[in-house]
């Protein structure tokens, strides 16, 4: 928990539609970060929320789904307008092994795309399972293809790739392939499913979690899950830690600190 540098303002250089509901915003500045680390994004006058760094380095960027007021406002901001950023925060993925399986569901590919590229660059053989509700929502597909990884598409509605969930495809790959490590980001029930597979196949795993965040720096306790703090101990956790989390897939905390069930 080193003392951070506080909020910095960055101008938007461009906004790119990735899917009908997901956009990428690129910013005029650089941010070096491990894959899986996040920033707190301040949309002035509206909200501040955590977002994975989907494009690290120069002209860094985040890839966000429009789900509420804050993200909607971000989506209508124009190049030249500025937002506040603090971070990078948290612990990202550590790249290990020669044979790697990466599983991304929903917006999960935002956190995993830099991971895919770096894993391929490290010389590993990389299988990527990319899943979405439907074909048009498959996130950063082209970027994955270009990376040199082997892409396996799943859609809930069968509009592309195999019909079904990412966990189904991951099960098949884990049964036939030999993997040193599995990396995941996506809905919590997907993480729970993959953790089960990790347990049965013995393939270790690292997964990124999401919790409501206020401070982002390990002080307010709002992102707590069984005493771990997603903002500083995570968002990426190893399967050892994940297996011990009694709240995983069950409850999360609301902004007031009350416990609510995970859908």
């Amino acid at each position, binding site marked *: 928990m080193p003392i951070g540098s*506080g909020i910095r303002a960055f101008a938007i250089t461009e906004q790119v539609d990735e899917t009908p509901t997901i956009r990428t915003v690129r910013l005029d500045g650089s941010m070096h970060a491990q894959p899986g680390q996040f920033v707190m994004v301040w949309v002035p006058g509206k*909200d501040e929320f955590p977002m994975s760094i989907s494009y690290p380095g120069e002209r860094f960027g985040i890839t966000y789904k429009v789900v509420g007021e804050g993200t909607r406002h971000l989506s209508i901001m124009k190049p030249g307008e500025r937002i506040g950023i603090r971070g990078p925060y948290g612990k990202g993925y550590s790249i290990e092994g020669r044979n790697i399986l990466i599983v991304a569901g929903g917006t999960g590919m935002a956190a995993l795309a830099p991971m895919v590229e770096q894993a391929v660059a490290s010389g590993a053989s990389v299988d990527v399972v990319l899943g979405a509700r439907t074909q048009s929502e498959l996130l950063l597909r082209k970027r994955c293809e270009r990376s040199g990884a082997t892409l396996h598409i799943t859609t809930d509605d069968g509009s592309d790739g195999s019909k079904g969930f990412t966990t189904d495809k991951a099960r098949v790959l884990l049964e036939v392939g030999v993997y040193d490590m599995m990396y995941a980001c996506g809905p919590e029930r997907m993480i729970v499913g993959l953790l089960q597979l990790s347990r049965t196949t013995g393939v270790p795993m690292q997964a990124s979690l999401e919790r409501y965040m*206020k401070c982002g720096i390990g002080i307010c306790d709002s992102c*707590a899950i069984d005493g771990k703090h997603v903002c500083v101990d995570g968002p990426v956790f190893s399967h050892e830690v994940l297996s011990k989390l009694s709240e995983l897939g069950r409850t999360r905390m609301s*902004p007031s*600190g009350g416990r609510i069930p995970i859908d």
Partner: protein
Amino acid sequence: MTGLEVDIAGIRMRNPTMLASGILNETGRSMVDVAKAGAGAVVTKSVGLEPREGHPNPCIVELKCGLINAMGLPNPGIDAYLEEVAFAQNGGVPVIGSVFGGSEEEIAEVAKRMASAGVAAVELNLSCPHAEGLGAEIGSTPDRVKRICGAVKASVEVPVFAKLTPNTSSIVSLASAAEEGGADGVVAINTLRAMAICPELGRPILSNRFGGLSGEAVRAVGVRCVYEIFDTVTVPIIGVGGVTTSKDALEYIMAGATAVQMGTAVWSDGPGVFSDVCDGIGKFMNANGYESVEEMKGIAHR
């Protein structure tokens, strides 16, 4: 009491450090972890009668020598929170329940429910500088402080600590009022009312605009407050504000504090800061021939 042990209003602590209210105490589990990391006691989050989301984000600003926060007293309401308090007891150290409210009656009621969860004491947050109608807004006049302490004393059996605001021309008169109202101890200080502005965006960073400054930046103010209070009141004092090292804790103790709380240091140094501070105090005592923390209390007044 020998070594690091202290007794505060009858509460025995294995060492003089406590987790401050509002830091890693939304969940019982986090409080247990902080206790395991070495804290001598844990204070809970400040809790009210009803659930409250607190202020929208951004609610924290990182500075070079501290934090500004405007959490805005988020909490799930006392009834839901009692479960966390109960869990916190597993830490094996005293749990002190922090409560807030908008009136004497409300605070007394929350304190009563808090006490029902078996806390060692209740701490009254009369000092949050960024929540309308709560905290410092009702804790800035001696008269009100006295009445609130009186009302709470009448409703609970456990010791009552009044946490005071430094945003006043005389924290001593607030402390005296708390004592007159029957408080068993005072806690000083809560955060200093503060603001940060982002020049590029031309606006205050916090959604609430105003927040409270904590950490290194405020220590010299907190030590001064404790020193002033010690000259006037006889109830024990708990020192808070910018404690990160054993030297900082010793400043408070020598100014007159029986124990210290730490909040912002958990951010800058992690929960290991509790055992680091205690180790440092122990070494200092050995090197300087002190046999108890009590012996050092207030010696800067000689």
